[in-house]
């Protein structure tokens, strides 16, 4: 199938709603983070959304770290 259209791909093939639910934007010690919600109720950091460069070097904020909400 070849589509020749000015529409963007997401307009034609909308993403599955469950894909949006896998990550949430929450705060960890007042720093906004994008996190993956684990089955045990805690969160795993996917991305830090802070403007403070020192946060990115802080061990507690590395992607993959877990924290409790």
């Amino acid at each position, binding site marked *: 199938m070849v589509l020749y259209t*000015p*529409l*963007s791909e*997401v*307009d034609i093939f909308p*993403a599955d709603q469950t*894909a*949006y639910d*896998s*990550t949430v*934007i929450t705060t960890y*010690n*007042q*720093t*906004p983070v994008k996190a993956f919600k684990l089955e045990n109720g805690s969160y795993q950091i996917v991305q830090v*959304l*802070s*403007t*403070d*460069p*020192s*946060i990115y*070097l*802080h*061990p*507690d904020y*590395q*992607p*993959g*770290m*877990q924290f409790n909400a």
Partner: protein
Amino acid sequence: MTDLNNQPQQPQKEQPGDQPKKSELVEKIQQLGQSNVAQAPDSNIHVLPIIGQVEGHMQLPPQNKTTKYEHLIPQLVAIEQNPKIEGLIVLLNTVGGDVEAGLAISEMIASLSKPTASIVLGGGHSIGVPIAVSTNHSFITETATMTIHPIRMTGLVIGVPQTFEYMDKMQDRVVNFVTQHSNIDEDKFKELMFAKGNLTRDIGTNVVGQDAVDYGLIDAVGGVKEAMEKLNEEIDKRKPDEDEQVIQ
């Protein structure tokens, strides 16, 4: 702002037969792939990354890297309010995106009272151009590119002449912002925007590093070092003169 020194300490429970030191290290390696991370002192300069696509009113699927204005705008207010923050660096590597979200971010950066600098790293395309020029000083790395082209709309469009007038006005808003915040003149910017042959069959121009500086769009070619030097220079200028304070 998060004060890293005042975080509540997690109580360490020592259980019999448990080896907390070893398990902590193993856990760290499992989670991060490394055992230790470098520490940095508190910074008086904050960094605002504009990455991926600038997201507008429609949320993009999660596999897209996006810059969300609803995250950035409160952060910019916090930067303005926090007396510990003395400067801001905007890092751009964006393909562009929503015009109104991009203009909102640009206007917020332009209206900050603190010294600001931007660095265009890989690409600062389309709506990345107004964001790049919105700072006091703009830098572009030698290999970075910026695509200047007319605005486009995808999705459902109401087919009435007013729609095209609206798009024309939206185009003017972008052109006006860029010409007011950079040294490029309107005619030159429009010439680049509607040029033929540069982007194969599309209209527009892809300007690379030094070209952007030659056109007056960006202030200088440079990276982190140049931007930090410029920001520190501006911050020092704003500090009250110590000699004057002593004489009373």
